[in-house]
């Protein structure tokens, strides 16, 4: 879909996904790595736990469909070579600290002199301006400052961030959207522009309306309410994540007419249990009016549901709920996800062959399905400088001798 565009990806892990979705959609995307390889190649997990810049699964995941060249843009020679690439490029994606590109004479003002059509997409922790522009970020710092962390975890424990770092992916994807808007806009205004993306804003956008909204309207500061809390849907103190025999399931009890059929089905299912969970044979979730429910009655319902879920496996509960039109889902691990039937049925997964590893690896496929993407082939992530020859010799017209000299000088 985006075959006509060339993207130069100067970014580290903060921007890798931005360039990857463009590459997934067909853009000719070149990762420009520093000689020796991009720093994000050090991020695990690793293929068979061998710590090696060519075996990072993080690298594999976020750099597929790209080409790789090596270039030290901090040297004057490197900058001259980069400028040649800029002439034929449409988009540059970068995630250096603000000011770094300027010190390389490659900031937007310089780049647009070389190519007025160029779109420069910057992805940083805090953005290109403002009091925090030079602040150092990290995954944890972003979870903290965005407001997500304060409300995650139990009230009597410290605020909690996800154990798997991925906050910067929000910034990368917002940047991808900004870049696409700029590319479309270029058709109208006839020139490129600068896209300034802040990972802080991208993650703050993820916080729910009850954070700033409730504070503004009612002066209420949202707290870490923990797993067992008064649920907005039912007004009952209960979890959304329930323990079951072999893990957890997610289920939200919601009253009201659109859920009465599901609530009736669940009530009947619970009543059919042997040994019985409920003594009262008139137990019926569908007819409860939450406004008139006492705390004690609420606690009773919570106990009944807890006991019911605890007796069964994720699979049993999920299948049973599907049959009955009840919305319940198992908490899935990555291993569970690999064999989830719906994803297989839709052909979500792709197998990519890595000749160096002599192995096929299963990857998540396209983030969306459309006929326009169907015909495209996936490429595994590139090796360090794998396409140096293609780009420098075949395209820019360097002689093999020149390329070798630049390699010896650690510029390429």
């Amino acid at each position, binding site marked *: 879909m985006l075959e006509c565009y060339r993207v130069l990806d100067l970014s580290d892990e903060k921007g890798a996904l931005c360039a990857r979705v463009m590459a997934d959609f067909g853009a000719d995307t070149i990762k420009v790595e520093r000689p020796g390889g991009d720093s994000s190649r050090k991020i695990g997990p690793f293929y068979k736990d061998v710590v090696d810049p060519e075996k990072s699964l993080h690298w*594999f995941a976020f750099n597929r469909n790209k080409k790789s060249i090596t270039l030290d843009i901090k040297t004057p020679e490197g900058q001259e070579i980069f400028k040649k690439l800029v002439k034929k490029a449409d988009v540059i994606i970068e995630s250096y600290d603000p000011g770094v590109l300027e010190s390389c004479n490659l900031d937007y003002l310089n780049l647009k002199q070389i190519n007025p059509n160029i779109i420069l997409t910057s992805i940083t922790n805090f953005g290109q301006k403002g009091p925090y522009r030079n602040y*150092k970020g990290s995954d*944890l710092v972003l979870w903290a400052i965005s407001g997500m962390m304060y409300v995650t975890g139990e009230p009597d424990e410290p605020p909690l961030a996800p154990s798997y770092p991925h906050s910067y992916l929000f910034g990368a994807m917002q940047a991808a959207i900004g870049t696409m808007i700029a590319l479309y806009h270029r058709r109208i205004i006839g020139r490129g522009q600068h896209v*300034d993306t*802040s990972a802080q804003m991208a993650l703050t956008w993820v916080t729910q309306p009850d954070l700033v909204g409730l504070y503004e309207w009612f002066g209420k500061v949202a707290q870490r309410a923990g797993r067992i809390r008064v649920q907005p849907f039912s007004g009952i103190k209960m979890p959304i994540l329930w323990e079951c025999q072999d893990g957890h399931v997610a289920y939200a009890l919601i009253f009201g007419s659109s859920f009465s059929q599901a609530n009736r089905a669940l009530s009947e299912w619970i009543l059919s249990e042997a040994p019985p969970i409920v003594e009262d044979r008139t137990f019926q979730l569908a007819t409860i009016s939450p406004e008139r429910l006492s705390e004690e009655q609420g606690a009773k319902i919570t106990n009944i549901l807890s006991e019911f879920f605890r007796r069964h496996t994720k699979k049993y509960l999920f299948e049973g709920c599907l049959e009955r039109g009840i919305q319940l889902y198992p*908490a899935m691990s990555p291993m569970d996800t690999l064999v989830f039937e719906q994803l297989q049925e839709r052909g979500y997964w792709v197998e990519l062959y890595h000749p160096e590893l002599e192995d096929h690896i299963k990857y998540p496929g396209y983030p*969306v399905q*459309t006929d326009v993407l169907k015909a495209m082939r996936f490429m595994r992530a590139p090796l360090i400088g794998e396409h140096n020859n293609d780009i420098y010799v075949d395209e820019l017209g360097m002689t093999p001798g020149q390329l070798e000299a630049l390699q010896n000088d650690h510029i390429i």
Partner: protein
Amino acid sequence: MSDKPFKDLKVLDFTWAGVGSFIVNYLAWYGATVIKIENVKRPDITRCSPPYKEGKPGMNRSLFFSWTHPAKKMDMTLNLNTEKGIAIAKRLAVWADVVVESFVAGTMEKWGLGYDELKAINPEVIMLRTCTHGQTGRLAKQPALGFTLTTLSGFNNITGWPEGGLNELRGAYTDFIAPLFGGFALIAAVDYKERTGKGQCIDLSQHEASLQFLSPLLLDAAVNKRNHKNNGNDCDRAAPHGVFRCKGEDRWCAISVFSDEQWMALCKVLGFPDWTKDSRYKRKEGRYEFRRELDMKIEEWTSRKTAEEVMVEMQTAGVPAGIVSTSKDLVEDPQLKQYHFYNTLEHPEIGECSFFQSPPFRLSDAAAEISTPPILGKHNNYICEHILNLSSEEISDLKDQQVFD
């Protein structure tokens, strides 16, 4: 008008709640003409969710609706259970360049508004359809809430203390991931159509899109046959790495030290107390091994300072640090203010509100127009007169036949 990239783009929006609305927001912010179709009896579900302004329920008074729709959209109520309602929807689908919907699979087909039908009357149409599991497969018609899809996708499995089981990654988390891929794909499709004249149908499964964020863990499972282990706020590439209690009630500052250089900077901020000279802390591996005692020593220092003081002192020395922001902190955050991330606008029914969010990026040559949310059915007449070119007799006939109910 050249600062409006989508000024000539026409969008027919059948979406409701989070994901679909977030996708359409990008188009509306940057100049598209958007018609949001609702139904009086079943309006956008976020209109009907408390809290309401001053606690008074009303179709235009919900916080969730205002918060999810800070973009300029026209609003039309249409009863798609009437033939004439469907006929109007079809005429608007011919007018539109883009049609977006977020019902469970099969709903649009029920009304005769599926992709094949729309393509027959508007061959170049771009349609984006999003639901939990996509348009095909056994689960296509099974709905979910953002909360439960977050669990299914595995985000609760990666949030927890080492021995403590799962935690909710708060809120309808995946509702904020899927629209990023949907928004990107839709704008790419609009660009593609501009170049080729070809439309397409985009099927966005919110589950499939959300899993993209967990790609390395899915590869880890596929290759190394294992699941990620939770380690609270620890990071095996950094120590100290966590949140530290500060002065005040439930106040915290996050600090993460990845390099020896950052470690030295931290020691300097603390004034090099004797314990920092302990040789076990000299290297990252040692700091990681003894991280719990290290944390306690650092917390002795942070607990005497405010979270803001800790952040500023650490950052000034080059150590990544950030306060654990509450909603009050977000409103007061000087960096967000610099970018005007939150916008204050006068809503015609609920008055001035300041929580209207802007896109998390800035384009140097195009400004996003942040707006108050659409008022239910406000543009029924305008659309009938100016887009459908109906006479006032025709409009009142349609009203009599409950087409706008």
